[in-house]
Structure formats: C-alpha cells, structure tokens
C-alpha cells in the first residue's frame, strides 16, 4: 500500500508528459473561433464590382444554411480549395457566400473569371474591417452559418475533401434537419 504511494510521482510525471506530448501534436496556429454559436456580425459590404453577384450583408446570409468563405486573389491556399467550392456550386449542395479580403476589386474579379465564381453573393472587404468582426486572422477561412444566422463552424486554412465530407457536409445536413 505504502509502496504504491512511492510510484505516485512517477505516475504524475507520465500523466503530465503524456498531456504535453499530446499538446505537441496540436497546431498552435489554429485558434478556436470565439464566434461559434454566436450570431454573425452586423455588416453590409459593397458588391465586388463587375463580378455579377449581389453585395453581401447580414440580412443576405440569414434564412438558409450557408457557407461563408473569406478569400483573396493573393492567397495561394484559396486557389487550392477553390475547385471544391466550384463543385459544391455546380451540384447546388449549399449556397456559398464570398468575402473578398484585402484585395483590389479587379484582382478578385479576374481571379474569379479565371477559376470560376462559385459564390451566391460577394462582399468586397477592401480594408479588412468587416473580416475583423468575423474574427478572421488569415485567409482562407470558411464558416458554416445556420438558418437563424448563427455561426456553427469555422475552418481556418483551405478546405480539404476530407474536412468537407467529414465535418462540413454532415453539419449542413444536421442544421437543415433542425427546424
């Protein structure tokens, strides 16, 4: 009995080492969003001139389960995830709203002309002020917003097929079924 007590420090050490070891496997650049389960910010962005899509505002997002994607033409990972959004738009899986972040309007427009435009509505956030209200700290970022305009999920970095199939699409389904 007393013997067992002597092993307590060792056990405590291994518990701590295990915990810290687990901590090392986590990516410190991924910060959980403070906005999960909170309403989307109140905002109204101008349209992206020449993109042929309506402007984006709080009211435009509410009413339907939707994705909100923050992108920029200067952002390489945005280019990586773009085909996924193109497919979602083609198959009409879920509406995707775009926020063009700190990008010249003509650059964004040309980028969309080259790669395709999957967005239902696009807001042009040239100075990045609205993005801060969304808690954006690096592009691309993608949010899942439910019908009531509540943010349910956020992904920082490019969407991969795995994240789409395992996290985003099931969540969209769930949110649609929940009245």
């Amino acid at each position, binding site marked *: 009995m007393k013997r067992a007590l002597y092993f307590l420090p060792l056990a405590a050490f291994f518990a701590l080492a295990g915990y810290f070891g687990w901590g090392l496997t986590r990516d*410190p*650049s991924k*910060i*959980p*969003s*403070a*906005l999960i389960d909170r309403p989307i910010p109140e905002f109204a962005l101008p349209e992206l001139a020449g993109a042929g899509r309506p402007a984006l505002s709080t009211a435009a997002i509410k009413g339907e389960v939707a994705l909100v994607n923050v992108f920029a033409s200067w952002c390489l990972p945005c280019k990586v995830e773009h085909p996924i959004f193109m497919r979602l738009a083609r198959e009409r899986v879920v509406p995707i709203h775009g926020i063009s972040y*700190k990008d010249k309007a003509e650059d964004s427009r040309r980028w969309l002309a080259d790669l395709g435009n999957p967005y239902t509505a696009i807001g042009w956030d040239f*100075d*990045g*002020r609205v993005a*801060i*209200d*969304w*808690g954006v*700290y*690096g592009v691309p970022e993608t949010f899942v917003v439910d019908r009531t305009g509540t943010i349910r999920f956020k992904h920082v970095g490019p969407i991969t097929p795995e994240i789409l199939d395992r996290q985003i699409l099931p969540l969209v389904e769930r949110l649609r079924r929940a009245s």
Partner: protein
Amino acid sequence: MTLRRIGFALLFAAFGAAPAWAVLPHERLADPALEARARALSLELRCQVCQNQSIDDSNAPLAADLRRIVRERLSAGDSDPAVLDFVVRRYGDYVLLRPPVREDTYALWYGPFAVLILGAVGAAVYLRRRRPDAQAAAPALSEAEEKRLRALLERRE
C-alpha cells in the same frame, strides 16, 4: 583621429538608434494621453498571425488593423476594458497575452503554486518520517566503541 571619430559615429548609429517600434507614425493619435492608453492596450493584445508578439510589436497587416481599431474605440470614448472586450468578442480570450483569472483558468494561474505546496508538504512528511527511523535503526555501540569514543572526546577537551 578622424578615423576614430567615424568609428564612434558608426557605433552610435548602430546601437544608439531609437528602437524600431511597429507602430507607424501615421497611426498615432494626436492626444498623447489617448495614445499612451492605446500603446498600453496594444501590449496586452496578441497578434494572431505571429502569435508570441503583441500587436504593438508586430509588423503583420492584421496587427496594424487591430492597432487602428484600438485607437478608433479609444477615440470613440471606450474605456480600456471595453476596448479589450471588443477584441476578445471577436478573437476569444486567446488574444489576451495575460489570460483572465477565472474559474476555468484557476489551474493555469494557481496550479504551479499548488504543485509547489504539495511537493513541499510531501518532502516535509518524508523527511520527518525518516529521521526517527534513522536514529532507531543505528546499531548501539559496543563496549569497545564506547570506550574509544570517550577517549576521543576526552582528548579533545
């Protein structure tokens, strides 16, 4: 002589230069009191991009945006806690370089002291227990040893 002067001048230029802050001149507020508060608040806020720098230190564009927002809020009459809260609402507690003392951060703030106290108590208990044991366990001196001990002690006196 002139060479030495040039040398000194170069040294001065290298080490005597004002520290380069990331805060750019055009970002500063005209009111020195407000600007001082803005600087103090900026030191409390973590830059999300280069995570161990404050937004005061960081050259990242996002840090510049946040510095501007801090100044905007202060100019609009916000108190210091209101400004911090404004940023925390968007980016979470993680932006605070000094985490708040709250129930869920007690372990963070007080954990090390708890471990220290626990260790001290453990060490004290261990040492207290060991001492009488050690005395009891020492074998009694034989007659010859007693004699020798007495002889040694007497010699010293």
